[in-house]
């Protein structure tokens, strides 16, 4: 039986690449995103690549009140659920967030509160079912706050901590929680950025994510080198760290 996957934030570069891996394996997919046109383009591609079923739903995931209905409808369309993949998020403008709390709050809402709402609903559903995988994109930026993007970083730090706790709660009930921590990835968002030619290839990141889901991993750093880099960064003493320009 083909895997049934719900993808939230399906038009992001990493999510689209991951969906292509699933499509090739004949999975059934429900794609959720904000733009009907973009969802339609992604869906056509996934159908051609061999996905068994592709449905789309337009939704603003900041609208947490709509989550229960959206999730129930999606599961209905799929006839069940094996994997939920949360890939939505915003970078925000650090500068703007420093000047205006509302800008910071927006980043926290989209990157932290919205996934908390979705994960709460989905984990309860999976617990009831006795199995399921919740795969969530966090970030290496959540491992330590840096002056260049600590608002984004703290939203991801909160999310990672939430997922750790959730995993601790639901693991023995047959539910897997995978925290995905990508380093910089070559997508349209990062094109032209300094050093972007060295960023990770989205297709390789996507394959690692699908493999980690199948292996029921807890935490995935992609590419793996980030596990070592972040280990070092976490262990720099604060007295030194605060003087660094990171």
């Amino acid at each position, binding site marked *: 039986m083909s895997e049934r996957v719900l993808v939230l934030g399906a038009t992001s*570069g990493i999510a689209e690449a991951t969906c292509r891996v699933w499509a090739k394996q004949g999975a059934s997919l429900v794609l959720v995103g904000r733009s009907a046109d973009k969802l339609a383009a992604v869906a*056509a*591609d996934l159908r*051609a*690549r061999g996905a068994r079923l592709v449905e789309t739903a337009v939704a603003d995931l900041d609208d947490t009140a709509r989550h229960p209905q959206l999730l129930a409808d999606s599961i209905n369309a799929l006839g069940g659920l094996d994997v939920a993949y949360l890939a939505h998020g915003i970078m925000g403008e650090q500068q703007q967030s420093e000047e205006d709390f509302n800008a910071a709050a927006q980043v926290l809402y989209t990157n932290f509160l919205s996934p908390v709402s979705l994960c709460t609903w989905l984990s309860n559903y999976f617990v009831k079912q006795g199995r399921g995988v919740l795969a969530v994109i966090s970030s290496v930026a959540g491992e330590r706050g840096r002056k260049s993007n600590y608002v984004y970083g703290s939203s991801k730090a909160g999310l990672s901590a939430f997922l750790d706790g959730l995993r601790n709660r639901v693991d023995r009930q047959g539910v897997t929680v995978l925290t995905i921590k990508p380093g910089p990835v070559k997508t*349209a968002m990062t094109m032209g950025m300094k050093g972007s030619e060295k960023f990770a290839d989205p297709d390789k990141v996507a394959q690692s994510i699908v493999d980690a889901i199948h292996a029921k991993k807890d935490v995935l750093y992609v590419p793996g080198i980030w596990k070592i880099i972040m280990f070092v960064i976490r262990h720099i003493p604060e007295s030194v760290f605060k003087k660094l320009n990171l």
Partner: protein
Amino acid sequence: MTGKPPFEPWGRYPKYNANVVPLQWQSDFPAIVSRYGGMHNGALAVGMGRSYGDVCLLKDGNLMVTTGMNRILGWDPETGILTAEAGMTLAQILDFCVPRGYFLPVTPGTKYVTLGGAIANDIHGKNHHVAGTFGCHVPEFELVRSDGTHLRCSATENPDWYAATIGGLGLTGVITWAKLKMKPIVSRKIDYEGIQFHGVDEFLALTEASKHVEYTVSWIDCSSTGKNFARGVFMQGDHTRNPGELKPSPEPKLIFPIEAPGFMLNSASVAAFNTVFFHKQMKKRVTALQDYEPFFYPLDKVLKWNRMYGTSGLLQFQYAIPWEHAREGTIAILNEVAKSGLASFLAVLKAFGDVPSPGLLSFPQPGITLALDFPIKPGKSFPLFDRLAQMTLEFGGKLYPAKDARMTATQYQKSYPEWQQFLRYKDPLLSSSFWERVTREE
């Protein structure tokens, strides 16, 4: 728009600053085209930047990079017609189509080019004599103009725009998607044959004898003189008819790691390379059953091999000379190269056939084409380029824009007289450094 140029062509010459704009969604069109086209020095859509010179550059303008637009919009397993967004690469197309029993109808010597780039340069492959150019296999595409119009183009719908855009160097608008008619195969293997030859006449005789073989191309040693003058290896192949594995050939692993110092590529090392290459094939004739990857893309094995030429870069020189003067022209030009003492690692010789291209400004025409690689040494290679360009014109030939950065406006306008007619179709907000160079008054 300062600092390191974000986009350099494959030959790494010339280098210009530009603003990079990613194109990711068709639904962003045409707003983004008119917005960036109207800014600064205009805009140009680019693909993988696998053109050697300045057709994929726009100095201080906006380069709209299409590689994020790489979705499949439709696939018909009966007819083998693929509909895809223009930023999809031939490598991605192969990954999708080979397992389904289909191959590219025409492929250049690298698979890292986009569908849009292949149409805009109307590229050719080793099968030009039987299949014509890439554009011959593109039944339909969509063009978006900066004034907001969407044009569906085919031989029957907007046929004049269809003709202007195939080989239209990205100047008629942005190609958003295209259909490509793929070729059925039963295995990923190629029945290969390599034959040593000496001189242009032997090359021509082999070409004549292999008219019905699908793929033919020759590597030629242009550093030797005397009895080894124009020696080479004639390489030909067909998709094998014996059913076999239909998996994409594995991806190359090597990446050329560093910038090579310029002295690595001198005439002595090239002469040594050429001798080794010639004798690597020990016998007069060898046959083999080969994967498509080494047959079509031997150079892709070393990703970024252009770095071998260092930061100053390299440039190809590629001409097409019509049959009338093809033999004498080729001999004269090979003589000139040998005499110059300047080394060309890769010299590729091929006969173009007479399948007409639908494109107005297409490069291929019946006759002989020769492509040569030279490291850029302004004081030395440029005078040679200029002499070779002049000779090409005298033999009634023309140069390939995809490989050019040197042609003068007079030379271009003389060898592509259709350019005047083409002006009607040029988008007013799009341009390229190539176009500005070759349409300037002299």
